[in-house]
């Protein structure tokens, strides 16, 4: 009787140990997904230190609370001219901060460029900020950034503008729509997963572009918020909304002002429609401009499942920095 009891106890302990080991390993596996960075990624994620240069934080460029930028000045202050690399933060136009890109900006600065992270007024329930107003803020900020760099002894003669997601959208708008009026030439642009056009049929992931009242109403709300102009379901139906989203559709301006580009997109993106990228790609190809694009077939908005393609994208960004920014 005692032997049977003891056997049962041993089996129970073994099963318990097995379950515990599984749970611990499961947790370790989950944590490792965030904690372990691929080797190549470390190269592009530099920790800021005084060894790299000087950081000037929260310099104002306008009256708005968010109208501030950080300027990363490289250690080598002896050059007669510098390239400026602006990197705009992600966050769906409603969240995020320039400090979130510190490692990217530090990497750009470590390569000898003056780097700048610019904040813009985020859309909230209580304001009317839109992609249009944000793009205008960025346009207003760039001359101030260049002025501030010159004041610190870093004269700028060319620039690149880049970003992630919403930041990428704003970067492309600046490069293609406003680049012609920039104080210095915009020599190329780079970024990932930024929406470059707002054509209803591309935005099916948000229920827009279908032949129904609900879909047209959803499109009117989404594109009104994005464009900062009132768009009605009727305008969605007859296509006249396109003139209202034109100013925030970077792809529309590629032909007018073809700026070289390096872009990356996820084929399974649930946040920014991949179809919108196809329009950008067509515009870039038609313009004959020098561009490279990377499609991550297994990834969504985070470009999270295709490390090899991501590494190739970053290598190409580095090559374009060399090529266009010197």
């Amino acid at each position, binding site marked *: 009787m005692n032997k049977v009891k003891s056997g049962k106890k041993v089996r129970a302990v073994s099963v318990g140990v097995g379950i515990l*080991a599984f*749970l611990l390993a499961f947790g370790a*596996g989950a944590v490792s997904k965030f904690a372990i960075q691929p080797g190549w990624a470390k190269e592009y994620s530099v920790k800021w230190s005084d060894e790299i240069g000087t950081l000037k934080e929260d310099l104002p460029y306008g009256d708005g609370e968010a109208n501030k930028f950080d300027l990363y000045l490289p250690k080598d202050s002896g050059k007669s001219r510098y390239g400026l690399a602006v990197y705009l933060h992600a966050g769906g136009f409603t969240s995020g901060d320039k400090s979130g890109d510190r490692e990217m900006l530090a990497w750009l600065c470590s390569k000898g460029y003056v780097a700048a992270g610019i904040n813009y007024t985020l859309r909230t329930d209580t304001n009317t900020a839109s992609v249009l107003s944000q793009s205008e803020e960025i346009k207003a900020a760039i001359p101030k950034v260049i002025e501030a760099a010159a004041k610190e002894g870093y004269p700028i003669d060319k620039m690149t503008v880049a970003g992630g997601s919403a930041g990428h959208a704003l970067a492309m708008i600046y490069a293609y729509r406003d680049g012609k009026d920039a104080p210095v030439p915009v020599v190329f642009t780079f970024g990932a997963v930024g929406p470059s056009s707002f054509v209803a049929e591309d935005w099916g992931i948000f229920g827009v572009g279908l032949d129904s009242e609900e879909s047209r109403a959803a499109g009117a709300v989404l594109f009104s918020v994005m464009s900062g102009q009132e768009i009605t379901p009727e305008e969605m139906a007859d296509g006249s909304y396109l003139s209202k989203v034109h100013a925030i559709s970077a792809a529309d301006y590629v032909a007018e002002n073809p700026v070289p580009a390096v872009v990356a997109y996820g084929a399974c993106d649930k*946040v920014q429609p991949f179809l919108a990228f196809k329009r950008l790609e067509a515009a870039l190809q038609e313009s004959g401009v020098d561009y490279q694009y990377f499609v991550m077939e297994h990834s969504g*908005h985070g470009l999270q499942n295709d490390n090899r393609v991501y590494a190739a994208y970053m290598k190409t960004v580095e090559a374009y920095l060399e090529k266009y920014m010197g």
Partner: protein
Amino acid sequence: MTLTTKRILILSAIVLIGFVLGRLAVRALMNLLLGGTLFGGNIL
């Protein structure tokens, strides 16, 4: 094969499976939020 060796082998297999499933669970969750495929691309 002794009982202890068997136990160690079973435990190692459990740990390996747990680790792989942990990584896949995060990938599945990220895919749900951002889009993506469960397999292909990165090994895990």
